[in-house]
């Protein structure tokens, strides 16, 4: 207990320190401009606020629509215990993407222009609308958690009535949004290094987002089980890791076919910086987790799941950063390394995400399952719980052996 307290205070102190540094950086950004706060240039106009905060923020929120589709569209109700924290992760992810955009946009107060000044030929226009609409959908999907806390049963019923159209809309918007982030880069065929540039980037972005979204579900469950000292839904996470490994496989096949079609295999052996970064991304984010997750033993062990999922997340971030930064440096003839200010603001945004998740999960019924449910629900939960214990003891036995 004492040790828990000390580590907890350590994290609190770290969070406060990061947010303080972030607030100072925020001041520099808004009172001295982008030139004073970033290392962006005319040759390199998009940095980590786009590469990490937006591309990764949206991608890592993909668990939200994936799990919503599993539970509500495919009616696989046993995944219900993890739907709320997943939707919360996605919702916070999207809110923080908007926060990140407010830092990155040169004229953030005009952000609403996209609502009335239309340009349907622009991918950025599509992205803007997807962000607006899907954030609204996520707010509605998450609203029962808030409403329950205040016992607003009538409003909950209203939200529930529109839940299926809402979920379908959410899945569609996510599909468009995840892929459109890849489409953003279709316009730079000459600028992006050919290992990454492909006409199928929208598809790759979509597939990798689903894999990373699954990994985030596992990652987030593991962290919260530690932070809140609650059990791990091991059997559910095992199944999620199976979805993840299938998506990684599909992704790999598509990437190989694409490299072959474009006759780019030889680039994989060219000794230059892009090649090393490409291999790093593929080995960390695809090959190793694929090998790990294809083994039953790993899928059924909490630590195995956590390590595999972390690798997928890290590899995913590397992929997006490679596309946004590494792949664009060569042509622009300039190197970009984020400034301290840029880095601190990104750190602050991530920290706010963790802190917000912690407090919302602490004070709202995120992890407690709904009580007033249909009759068969408790039986389901009990069965799932029993299954949980069985699989935990099984994996424990395996570990002991």
């Amino acid at each position: 207990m004492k040790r828990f307290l000390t580590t907890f205070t350590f994290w609190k102190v770290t969070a406060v320190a990061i947010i303080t540094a972030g607030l100072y950086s925020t001041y520099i950004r808004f009172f001295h401009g982008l030139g004073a706060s970033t290392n962006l240039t005319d040759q390199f106009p998009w940095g980590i606020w786009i590469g990490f905060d937006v591309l990764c923020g949206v991608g890592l929120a993909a668990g939200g629509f994936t799990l919503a589709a599993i539970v509500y569209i495919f009616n696989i109700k046993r995944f219900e215990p993890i739907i709320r924290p997943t939707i919360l992760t996605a919702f916070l992810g999207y809110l923080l993407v908007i926060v990140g955009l407010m830092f990155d946009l040169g004229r953030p107060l005009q952000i609403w222009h996209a609502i009335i000044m239309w340009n349907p030929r622009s991918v950025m226009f599509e992205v803007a609308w997807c962000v607006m609409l899907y954030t609204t959908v996520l707010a509605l999907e998450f609203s029962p958690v808030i409403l329950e806390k205040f016992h607003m049963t009538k409003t909950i019923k209203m939200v529930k009535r529109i839940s299926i159209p809402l979920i379908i809309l959410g899945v569609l918007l996510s599909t468009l949004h995840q892929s459109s982030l890849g489409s953003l880069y279709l316009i730079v065929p000459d600028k992006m290094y050919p290992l990454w540039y492909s006409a199928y980037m929208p598809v790759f972005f979509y597939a990798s987002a689903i894999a990373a979204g699954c990994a985030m579900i596992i990652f987030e469950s593991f962290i919260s089980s530690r932070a809140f000292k609650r059990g791990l839904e091991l059997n559910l996470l095992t199944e999620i890791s199976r979805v993840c490994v299938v998506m990684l496989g599909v992704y790999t096949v598509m990437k190989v076919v694409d490299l072959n079609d474009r006759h780019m295999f030889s680039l994989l052996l060219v000794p230059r910086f892009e090649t090393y970064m490409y291999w790093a991304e593929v080995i960390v984010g695809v090959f190793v987790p694929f090998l790990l997750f294809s083994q039953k033993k790993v899928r059924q062990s909490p630590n195995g799941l956590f390590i595999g999922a972390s690798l997928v997340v890290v590899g995913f971030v590397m992929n997006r950063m490679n596309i946004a930064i590494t792949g664009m440096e060569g042509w622009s003839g300039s190197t970009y390394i984020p400034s301290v200010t840029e880095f601190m603001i990104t750190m602050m945004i991530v920290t706010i995400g963790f802190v917000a998740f912690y407090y919302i999960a602490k004070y709202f019924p995120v992890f407690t399952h709904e009580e007033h449910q249909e009759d068969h629900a408790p039986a389901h939960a009990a069965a799932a719980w029993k299954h949980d214990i069985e699989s935990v003891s099984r994996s424990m036995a395996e570990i002991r052996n």
Partner: protein
Amino acid sequence: MSTSKKALLIDLTLCVGCNACQLACKEANRMQDPEKEEKSLSATAYTALEEYDGVFVRRMCQHCEDPTCASVCPVGAFTKMAEGPVVYDVEKCIGCRYCMQACPFQVPRYEWSSTYPRVQKCVMCHERVAQGLPTACSEACPTGATKFGDREELLKEAADRLAAEPEKYIQRIYGQKEVGGTSVFYISSVPFEQLGFKTTLQNTPLPQLTWNALSKIPGVVSVGGAMLFGIWWITNRREEVREVERAMRQQAQSNNGKNNEVKS
């Protein structure tokens, strides 16, 4: 007022590097500090002369026929005018800098030091052009290296010059076909790739690439929506049927129980 398409022809063999174009440009566009000479494009220089081994290359916006910047801007801040200029409306701009990221010629510049920055690039003196005047740079050019005129006529003239002196000129009009054609043409006696030009650009307009993806949205939404609804309907129906069957089984069991009781 003439609405025929205008363009600029820049003959690099005639340029002596006097920088009159930049000065005239700064004055016409009311830049701060118009006397300051700049060696590359910036937020205060819509045009600049770069020197490559004694050859001066005048950089400026190409004013594409199908401008990438206009297609990528989420709020439509860029417009291609009928007369040829690609212009920018700062009142619409949200500052996402997608135009800078996307421009195949790397032209737009940003006011990085401002807290309320604008994108800056040549606007082909569109106000003067609308009045039937030439651009300030072409008017200022003492050697005729930059010539303003009707797009078709200038293209013809460029071709004539290449044909008249085939030994002198590289047989290429840069800007004629690049990314679907532009409104600024260069001819040169030195290969373009040695002068910092992007010579590997494709001939189809870049907006086509993103449109390939964007045009699939209606299909994804309608087919995807129908599919998701269909899957939901089936899985939901299956659940309902299972529910009813379970209820019937329970009823049957309790009935059996009663019958047994009666028998015994």
